[in-house]
């Protein structure tokens, strides 16, 4: 009745995340999936299975920055919907959509572990809390500005 986890399986998730991070469009292409399968000696379907399971991983191209709005109860109660609306109004995208300039993709997430500062959102690796619609737009603008400066 013992369970065994293969070493190759164990390194799969970190490999998928790293490859995604290296992608300019924040996603794993079919070529990526195939090359990871080859590298880790796993079947393509096995690699695709893990990639398709986690919402953290995308199998279609996304924007440069991923905005994740928390939709769990504490954030919901603290006014998450107004934050979501402010983002939609500012960027013209709904959940799971990408801006035309490919700068932002909006997603929802089931808890960022930041309930103490709800409503919260995450942009790439940064978490922002105690948000107001105005504050949210300001934050978005810093990312836009950064892009223009580049």
């Amino acid at each position, binding site marked *: 009745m013992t369970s065994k986890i293969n070493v190759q399986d164990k390194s799969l998730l970190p490999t998928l995340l790293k490859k995604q991070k290296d992608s300019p469009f924040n996603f794993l292409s079919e070529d990526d999936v195939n090359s990871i399968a080859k590298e880790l000696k796993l079947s393509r379907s096995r*690699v695709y*299975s893990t990639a398709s399971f986690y919402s953290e991983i995308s199998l279609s191209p996304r924007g440069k920055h991923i905005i994740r709005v928390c939709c769990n109860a504490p954030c919901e109660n603290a006014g998450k919907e107004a934050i979501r609306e402010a983002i939609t109004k500012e960027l013209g995208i709904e959940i799971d959509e990408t801006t035309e300039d490919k700068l932002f993709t909006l997603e929802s997430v089931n808890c960022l572990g930041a309930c103490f500062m709800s409503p919260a959102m995450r942009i790439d690796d940064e978490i922002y809390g105690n948000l107001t619609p105005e504050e949210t737009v300001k934050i978005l603008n810093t990312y836009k500005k950064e892009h223009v400066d580049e």
Partner: protein
Amino acid sequence: MNNNVEITLNGNKISVPAYISIMEAAKRNGINLPSLCHHPDQRVKAHCRVCVVEVEGRKNLVPSCSTQVADGMVIKTNTARVRETVKTIVELILADHPQECLTCIRNGNCELRQLSDKLGLTNIQAEPSVKRYPIDLSSSTLVRDNNKCIKCGRCAEVCHHVQEVGILYSHNRSTEICISPEYGKKLSEVSCVHCGQCVLACPVGAIYEKDETSKVWDAIQDPEKHVIVQTAPSIRVSIAEEFGLPAGNVSTGKLVSALRNLGFDKIFDTDFAADVTIMEEGNELLQRLKTGGTLPMLTSCSPGWINYIEQYYPELLAHVSSCKSPQQMFGALAKTYYSKVSGIPAEKIFVVSIMPCTAKKYEAQREEMRDSGFQDVDVALTTRELGRMLRSTGTDFSTLPEGQYDEPMGDSTGAAAIFGATGGVMEAALRTVYEVLTGEELKKLEFEEVRGMEGVKSSTVDIAGSPVKVAVAHGLSNAKKILESIKSGKADYTFIEVMCCPGGCIGGGGQPYGSTNARRQERIEALYRLDKDMELRKSHENPAVKKLYDDFLGCPLGETSHKLLHTHYSDRSA
């Protein structure tokens, strides 16, 4: 040391081994707990939750398949809570399942339907929510109907861990879960080997062979066609199971009578062609030894195995024997030799094979398999398809008379009979190679070291004073081990038999449902009994084969043999 534990099962105090699951403990004590994802030859999955039971002290019900017994454990398998839960789970599965049972290919042997019957489900309270996936008809051998899939994971398990081909797997999450190749690709778009082990593993009608019985009925009813049939070595020890009879029955005579009832003009035996295969393959091995050809030589009878090496290890194709499989040797000879002997023009001859195999369908359709000037084998049916044809005509298998195969392609030897078991081709080849090389009679015909269900077997045989090292692998995960050892230069074997399916052809993907390893063992034993009882047990002693060489082929590896009975395979890697 006593490795038993004391448990209480539904009030009965019993002692069971400490290492087993609750499901196994219950089974050994008179209770078969229901399950859909559990399979005796597979790892525990605990996907379906249909086997849940109550364990005292545990808040939640536990899956009995994945929970080990423990000393003092108090288990209840039929409380109201258990019964209600199991019923609800199955009702939920049924709500997702198309209600097409009457026209489903698994009508009569569907495990979900049997479970629903066992639980007495008469009313599904859950709201139906059947997704409509397109049916995948792209493969030349298999049909995948994802609408019927219950996500038990048995096909993925066999595809990944028994065969290690890795085509089918579970994708996405929650209500979106689906079992398919990556990106929901069709079977024709991935490197499937057509072994059909997924079909055997499936409890429902989500994946099955492409049924070609109507082509055979059409041919039989066509007065212009002379329809002949060949039966693979393993069919005679498995067809009875299609009629609910126990595994391991030898029913050669009844099989012949059943086929004659269907209306075939001649009933021939693939065993005849298996003896021819030994003549050609044995001589090819001798030639490779003499001329410094590529060694180890790998057998080529199993089309799933050929699909595998062509797609995954094409760099090793030079090791593969150039011999066609017995099915294809038969087809090529039927439309040349038999046509000549019978005076029936080849274009009128329609060759049907009864095979334990789904990959044989693919093989029959290959471009390379037209050396008679026609498609050598017109239709390859699985054991299950033959079962369907026979049932539809009211066949009562157990009371059929004992028939005889027809001449000139019906005689065979014990060597051919054992082709159906893992190690059988090797043993048959050794019997002939030994006598040809030494010129002496082989005293003991049985090569026990290459028999049995162990994944990779090896043996060293002394032939005329020189040791010949041989190996046998069955199931593609074991074939992979052998191929890797060849690649790394560690395989110092002369001759290696590889069969795609576990147990060899008796465990093929076209065999009756319920082909567990225990049943495979029964079928293997039946083949060895058959061999032992035969008058002739060496391929080169088959009088019909001798006549074939005298009257038509000349000699093994001769010009006609080369044209009709040999081929070459090519790189098909993706």
